[in-house]
């Protein structure tokens, strides 16, 4: 039955039902009373970056960042500012003295996280960043940026577990590589050992990738899969390719032992480093042109990249990110001088 | 001193003069209309004052006042319609400029 104005009354019935229903049916009230209640943010949500450290006892010493400045270079809106730390003698330390992120500029793109070779910078999920000011208040400095690995594990369990496993595997591999070479290094040159292998980050002892409980696998499948995944995460390649039999001594390191290269100091200028390496073979000259941060952005440390270029194994001269265009140009120049290009 | 009829007559004479002055000397047609309204009101006030002081028993004066108010309302409606029509034609409501009877 229809009459004029029927829709108006139907509408009023609907609103009356809403009104009464909202007092009895809690499902209807979707409001979250914010400061008291919060919505659980999804694990992969991200806001602004933070820096990871490993030991609660000494956050500054145990932070993973080595001040390689790759993120500063890569950051699209250029919101990161890094100054490398030095001790009293002016000797560069492998950590930042200043690490600023302007969160009013940051566009939360996560590129810094993706380019970081040390898993030192990660994305936070804290969205309560409002401040009373518009300028300095919106720049985050090193103390605010440093957060522990446990915190990272807490906010992003899946990702952090994978990262920890990978770091642990890397450290083990490095330790194995370094083990034969460490002795000569230790006996030969004690004073200059900045390139000594970084202490392995404290990783969770059992770096196992969690397979969700409701995943449709039989127990055997589950066991195999878990082992496979943790291996993949630890090595970064398929297990068949990188499954060194435990106990087998690793191949002797191709790199020269870390030590007596006077130019291996990121605090020196390019010209000074090249001067120091003036009378040396081409490989050392090439190495002196690098940024000396051993950041592994190129896939090697500085020594290894220089050797690879010198032997022709690596033809790309623009891989040194911290050195930027200066290094790339110098490498090209050196290679031309050496007649190899 | 009590308020006598005298006071009301004086007041309404004064208001009438003000209204007349406005209606005759201002340029703007709307203000001319307003002056006429003031004169109307002064007249109606006279009616009511006479009713109150002399002919309180009969309602003639009040009736006159009511009719006068109605006529004033009709007059102002027509007057303003004319003002709008004139404005459309001349793009102005200056009474000095309305000199021709041509349409």
């Amino acid at each position, binding site marked *: 039955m229809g009459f004029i104005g029927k829709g108006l009354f139907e509408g*009023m019935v609907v609103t009356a039902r*809403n009104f009464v229903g909202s007092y009895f049916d809690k499902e209807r009230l979707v*409001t979250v009373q914010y400061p008291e209640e919060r919505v659980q943010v999804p694990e992969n949500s991200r806001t602004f970056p933070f820096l990871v450290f490993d030991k609660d006892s000494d956050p500054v010493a145990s932070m993973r960042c080595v001040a390689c400045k790759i993120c500063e270079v890569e950051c699209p809106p250029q919101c990161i500012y890094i100054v490398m730390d030095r001790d009293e003698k002016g000797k560069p330390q492998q950590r930042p003295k200043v690490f600023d992120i302007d969160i009013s500029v940051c566009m939360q793109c996560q590129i810094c996280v993706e380019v970081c070779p040390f898993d030192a910078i990660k994305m936070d999920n804290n969205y309560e960043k409002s401040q009373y000011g518009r300028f300095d208040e919106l720049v985050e400095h090193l103390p605010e940026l440093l957060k522990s690995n446990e915190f990272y594990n807490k906010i992003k369990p899946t990702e952090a577990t994978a990262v920890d496993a990978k770091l642990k595997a890397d450290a083990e591999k490095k330790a194995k590589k370094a083990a034969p070479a460490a002795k000569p290094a230790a006996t030969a040159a004690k004073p200059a050992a900045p390139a000594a292998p970084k202490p392995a980050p404290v990783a969770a002892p059992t770096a196992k990738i969690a397979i969700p409980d409701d995943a449709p696998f039989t127990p055997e499948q589950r066991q195999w899969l878990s082992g496979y995944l943790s291996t993949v995460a630890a090595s970064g390649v398929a297990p068949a390719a990188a499954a060194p039999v435990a106990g087998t001594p690793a191949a002797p390191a191709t790199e020269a032992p870390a030590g007596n290269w006077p130019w291996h100091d990121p605090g020196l200028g390019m010209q000074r480093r090249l001067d120091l390496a003036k009378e040396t073979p081409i490989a050392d000259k090439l190495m002196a042109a690098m940024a000396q941060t051993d950041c592994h952005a190129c896939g090697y440390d500085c020594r290894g990249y220089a050797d690879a270029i010198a032997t022709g194994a690596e033809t790309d001269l623009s891989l040194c990110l911290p050195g930027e265009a200066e290094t790339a140009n110098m490498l090209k120049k050196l290679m031309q001088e050496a007649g190899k290009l | 001193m009590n308020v006598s009829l005298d006071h009301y007559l004086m007041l309404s004479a004064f208001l009438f003069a003000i209204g007349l002055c406005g209606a005759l000397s201002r340029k703007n047609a709307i203000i001319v209309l307003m002056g006429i309204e003031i004169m109307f009101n002064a007249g109606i006030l006279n009616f009511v004052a006479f009713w109150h002081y002399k002919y309180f028993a009969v309602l003639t004066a009040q009736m006159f006042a009511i009719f006068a108010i109605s006529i004033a309302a009709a007059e102002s409606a027509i007057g303003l319609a004319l003002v709008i029509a004139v404005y459309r034609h001349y793009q102005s409501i200056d009474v000095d400029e309305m000199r021709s009877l041509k349409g």
Partner: protein
Amino acid sequence: MDQVYKVAPQLLKFLSYLLGWLPWIGKPVAGFLSNPPAWFLLAVAIAIPILFVVSVFPGIFAYTTLVERKALGRIQNRIGPNRVGRWGLLQPIADGVKLLTKEDIVPRSADKFVHFLAPVIAVIPSVLLFSVVPVGAGLVPVDLNIGILFAFAISTASVLALFMGGWASRNKFSLLGAMRAVAQVVSYEVPMVLAAVAVVMAAGSLSTLAIAKAQGGGILNVTHWFVFRPWGFVGFILFTIGAMAESARTPFDIPEAESEIIAGYHTEYSGFKFALFQLGEYLASIAMAGITVTMFLGGYNGPGSGPGILGGLISMFWFFAKLGGMIVLTIWIRGTWPRVRVDQLMSFAWKVLLPMSIVNIVAVGMWHYIAIRPIAWVVTTLWLVLWFITLSKLAASENIEKREYRYAS
């Protein structure tokens, strides 16, 4: 006022009895109060209704805003204000403090004096309206014999405040809002007054007290309410629509349509001036609800109402209960119906409401002259229903094509 004048000596005697216990000033004050001079009695009799009006109704306004926000929230499945005090009960006070402490901004090119005057003028007619609303049996601030006419006369003056505010702000949206407000109020005034004429014809008086009294009696003091007559029901609907349009409540809030003209005439107002505009608007709407209750819903009449102290208190209860009901109805409507368009607004007033109110006046005449009630019921109902169908058919005569959606289904 007359009622208060009658009971004032007793009231003062009671006060003097209370004050007599005080040291120092107690004795002389009590002596003065127990035998008051005539001018003092008159002053008390004038002051009490004024105090009542300016204390009770702004309080109702404050909590109407809270109830409105809560109810609108629940209608939209939200919670509504619940931060200030238990269930947000202190919210109106917080709002008031906020508005008082806000900066008072006057646009540079505004007409300063008129801009200042407009919110003040917005409140005055709204408060004056309460002077003719009977809140209980015989309890009306002033029993004017032109009560209803006075109310309409005063309520038209509120348009001026809207116009002044809109014009003085020197803002095109303000001016548009002001012009819409004036056009709307002038248009809806006509059907509203004609709907009231029907009641005046039936009650035989313009006095609000007499109109309320005419609806007493019957079963439980309920059956003689005018809303339970065919013409009264139609008149109630017409008058409610008119009153809502007059006070710019939501389906007719064209003058301050946020989506079209920001906030209409009070776009350029902030702080306390804005609060005064809101106060005036809400008070006018509450007063109009009070007049609707008086004219159609039996006023203070209800089970148990009558003369005497107890009957008077019960009648006050009924009046305020009905007033609350009307306020809730307007809030409910606000939460449900969409805003009408400007052209629809005008054509609705002139093409539907105006003819319908004239038809309603004829219906009252029929009701009066047909002596046998059942026949009167049938005839007036038929007359009204037939006209309603005809008018709504005529109003909806422009055929709206069914819209074809190209992308949505």
